[in-house]
């Protein structure tokens, strides 16, 4: 259409991270054409089981990892010390986790924490019930979740590894769960209509038994979508029988862990259809 030089004055060097995004989209489209649609979504979303941190400081959700392979406790370690950015870099979380894993100090590791300070709301989520939402940074906005422009470290053929994502890692790379008791695991993304059965439901996994369990799940508008008192619940992303809209949801769970401590955990959940 035009010769090269005419447009030189308009040329702008794009940011360096854009190329990775191009490759990522290409990969998804290729897999899409192969027909593995829902698997692609799940792979791209990298439904990862997140170690839910329990602490009294600003809770920062570890960034969901791109590859299901990386779903190991070390990689998704909580970041107890407040980081202003809500996307705690994986490497720093890992090191922090390792420094805190002293086998001798099981009681203090990220478990028994004073009650969280209460604020009015997080990201506009209103709280109609007596639970006061602890202060924390806003849940990961949708655009920061792995769908989209992330550097995909997985070679997108992690479909075979998706079942891994569904289960909390049974052999954590850091010290085993009995030195860090009372952990809970939660998925950050579910695909209710997906092919991978493991990613279809939202449930929590506990490393020890819990009692007095209550879970509330809210949408971003603050409306209560789901509530349960059964720790072995499994939510199929339905409300009154209908699938809930795609989007980000926030859940809060209160319970007593095996040591009798009252705990309040929260996390975000993305529903992808």
């Amino acid at each position, binding site marked *: *259409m*035009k*010769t*090269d030089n005419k*447009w030189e*004055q*308009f*040329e*702008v*060097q*794009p*940011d360096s991270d*854009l*190329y990775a*995004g*191009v*490759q990522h*989209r*290409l990969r998804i*489209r290729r897999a899409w054409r192969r027909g593995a649609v829902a698997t692609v979504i799940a792979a791209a979303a990298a439904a990862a089981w997140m170690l839910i941190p329990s602490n009294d400081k600003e809770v920062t959700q570890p960034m969901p990892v791109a590859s299901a392979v990386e779903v190991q406790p070390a990689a998704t370690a909580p970041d107890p010390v407040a980081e202003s950015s809500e996307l705690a870099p994986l490497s720093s979380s890992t090191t922090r986790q390792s420094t805190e894993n002293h086998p001798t100090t099981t009681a203090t590791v990220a478990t028994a924490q004073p009650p969280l300070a209460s604020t009015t709301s997080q990201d506009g989520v209103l709280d109609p019930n007596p639970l006061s939402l602890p202060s924390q940074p806003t849940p990961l906005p949708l655009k920061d979740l792995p769908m989209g*422009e992330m550097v995909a470290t997985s070679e997108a053929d992690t479909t075979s590894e998706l079942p891994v994502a569904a289960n909390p890692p049974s052999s954590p790379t850091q010290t085993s769960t009995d030195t860090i008791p009372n952990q809970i695991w939660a998925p950050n993304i579910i695909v209710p209509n997906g092919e991978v059965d493991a990613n279809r439901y939202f449930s929590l996994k506990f490393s020890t038994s819990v009692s007095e369990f209550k879970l509330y799940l809210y949408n971003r508008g603050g409306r209560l979508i789901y509530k349960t008192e059964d720790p072995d619940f499994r939510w199929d992303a339905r409300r009154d029988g209908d699938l809930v809209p795609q989007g980000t949801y926030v859940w809060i769970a209160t319970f007593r862990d095996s040591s009798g401590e009252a705990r309040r955990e929260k996390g975000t959940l993305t529903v992808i259809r």
Partner: protein
Amino acid sequence: MEKDYAKIVSGSRQHKPAAQRALYDELAPMAMGICLRYAPDREEARDLLQDGFVKIYEKIATLRQPEKLRSWAYNIMVNTCIQRLRRLGREQLMEDMDSFNDEQPLPDISTSEIMAAMESLTPGQRLVFNLCCIEGLSLDEAAAKLRSNNSNVRALLCKARRQMRTILNQKL
């Protein structure tokens, strides 16, 4: 002096990562310039760039003459932008048709000032301004590309020019 694009084109066709990367590096600045012109903001521009490149990579097999790479990619980019902006829902195109004869030339200014001023245009105005004043399409060509009619395009263009002149005059 034409660069030799044959290697990176054929390499990209065979999905060779090195060639694909080279293709991207070669075309990215030009593509970014296009997207920044058409997109309402930087985020949208980044998105358009990625979408455009996805199209380029997927259609690379259809490029028969590697030496035409730049203009071919240019067309793809521009079409990507237009398609996206068309989907954004056109604002009221039936603008007031009075001042058609507002065809004075725009003042001579630097590119960055022009691009900054373009940010104040509405999406439709920017689209038409891009096509007619920068790309140099005629009104009929632009109307064909946008699948609209000539008078709509002309009205939008007048509004765009008037707006640009106002902004640029303020800066002078």
